[in-house]
């Protein structure tokens, strides 16, 4: 549904987005990750037709967003960053306006507004002015606006920003559910959301795509993928790490904690040794009193850090 090809966007001489290509099909939820200023919002603004691309092209449902802007926009629901909404209107008035400008009239409009209100839990503030809404409710109002015409494509810029934990959960569920029938792209700084809602994720840094894959694939890029955490009692930390270094599959050992005779160490596998490490470490630690022996999954936050800040990620691990 969304096809981005060699997209570049320049502000003056600054390349906010630099040669980005990806596509999102129906049934996919694409998570858009990246540090502040990476170019996520800019990319979304080009997809929704707010900003014209400097180079490259974007099509939505086969329509070029510049050449056939109106047809492309009909297919899109858009939640801009910071969820702007007309402060001089009531929530109901705003949603009615959004529905009407999407070409919904009469009974169809009523139904569309009712459905969006229900999905975003807005009944209690329907007649309140947008100006006096709390941030979370304003966010939900703008979100309701984006789904009011049941679009095929949803572009959501930080949809869970400012929501309480319950609402965050609801919105993730909603995105996941809607994602079965739509093409959704959403940006976030909350990495759990990638697991909770995405079928695929892209990490973008300084305008370029630096990783693209399923959450599982991204996790595999982590140093942590296949690492083993071992906790033993009454053994010196030095002894433990010396012994573990002798295990052929182990690449590196770090001491996590050494306190009151309890030692926790983490062994990282050499590449290609995934899976086999738990058994090997267990074998090496046979004679000690093992309190914990655990294989780690890859951690997205660590992948994120190592990709977007390669210099400092090592120290943090």
């Amino acid at each position, binding site marked *: 549904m969304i096809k981005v090809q060699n997209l570049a*966007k*320049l*502000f*003056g001489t600054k390349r906010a987005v630099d040669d980005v290509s990806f596509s999102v099909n129906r049934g996919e939820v694409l998570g858009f990750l990246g540090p502040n200023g990476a170019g996520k919002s800019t990319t979304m*603004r080009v997809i*929704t*037709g*707010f*900003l*014209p691309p*400097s180079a490259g092209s974007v099509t939505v449902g086969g329509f070029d967003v510049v050449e056939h*802007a*109106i*047809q492309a*926009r*009909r297919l*899109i629901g*858009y939640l*801009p960053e*910071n969820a*702007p*909404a*007309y*402060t*001089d*209107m009531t929530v109901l*008035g705003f949603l009615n*306006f959004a529905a*009407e*400008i*999407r*070409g919904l009239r009469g009974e169809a409009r009523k139904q569309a507004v009712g459905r969006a209100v229900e999905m975003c839990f807005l009944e209690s503030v329907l007649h309140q*002015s947008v100006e006096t809404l709390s941030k979370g409710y304003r966010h939900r109002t*703008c979100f309701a*606006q984006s789904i009011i015409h049941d679009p095929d494509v949803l572009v959501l810029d930080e949809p869970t920003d400012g929501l309480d934990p319950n609402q965050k959960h609801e919105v993730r569920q909603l995105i996941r559910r809607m994602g079965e029938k739509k093409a959704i792209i959403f940006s976030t700084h909350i990495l759990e959301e990638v697991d909770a809602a995405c079928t695929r994720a892209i990490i973008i840094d300084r305008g370029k795509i630096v990783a693209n894959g399923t959450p599982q694939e991204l996790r595999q890029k982590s140093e942590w993928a296949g690492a083993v955490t071992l906790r033993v009692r009454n053994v010196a930390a030095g002894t433990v790490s010396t012994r573990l270094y002798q295990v052929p599959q182990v690449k590196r050992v770090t001491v996590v904690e050494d306190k009151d005779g309890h030692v926790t160490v983490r062994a990282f596998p050499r590449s290609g040794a995934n899976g086999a490490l738990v058994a090997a470490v267990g074998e090496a630690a046979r004679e000690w009193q093992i309190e914990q022996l655990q294989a780690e999954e890859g951690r997205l936050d660590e992948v994120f850090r190592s990709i977007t800040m390669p210099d400092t990620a090592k120290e943090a691990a």
Partner: protein
Amino acid sequence: MNAWHNVWTITKRELGAYFTAPLAYVFIVIFLLLCGFFTFFVGGFFERQEASLVRPFFDWHPWFYLFLVPAVGMRLWAEERRVGTIELLLTMPITAWQAIVGKFLASWLFLALALALTFPVVLTVNYLGDPDNGVILTAYIGSWLMAGAYLAISCITSALTRSQVVSFIISLVVCLFLILAGFPPVINVLEQVAPRLVDLVTSFSVMTHFEGFQKGVLDSRDLLFFLSVIGFSLFTTSVILRTHRAG
């Protein structure tokens, strides 16, 4: 007529926005007070022994509008940019033109309402004498067109900035220029300094073109002048909005 439906949707929203804020009521009240005060006291309505509205009432309109129209138009785009709703508006399935025309129309209708509410003045003059109501109607039309020209200029300045105050000041200055270009004292000076420029300069003035309407003459050139100021200004607005986004 999908296009007009879109324009009308925008217009309705904007009109609604005027009346949820106190500014609209304040504007109308000030306008009516000014009209009443200047017509009956400053304009010497009662001293003139003629039942005519034209001089004492309509003569002041270019000056009232100088302050009031920029105040009406300043929020059109500046507010939209400040709050960020422009990103919603311009990603809806409508063209930028439809949005621009819709917003302009809303403000223009609002000014029409303010103008229409001056009807007691017309009633008074009809009660006191026997004026030529045709002339009054023509002058009203001219006044509304002039307000539209000011308003279109305010659209430009509003699109130029996020700040309503800045927008107000710039459009006031531009509109002042359009008045002064046809203001008798200025023309007198100009006649002495550069007599050959007089015709050119005055042809840009709203005063010159409003004059005809006040006499009850519907000259197509005057009509064309106001309509082209409006058209050109709205076009400029669209160019400005586009360049903002081009980055």
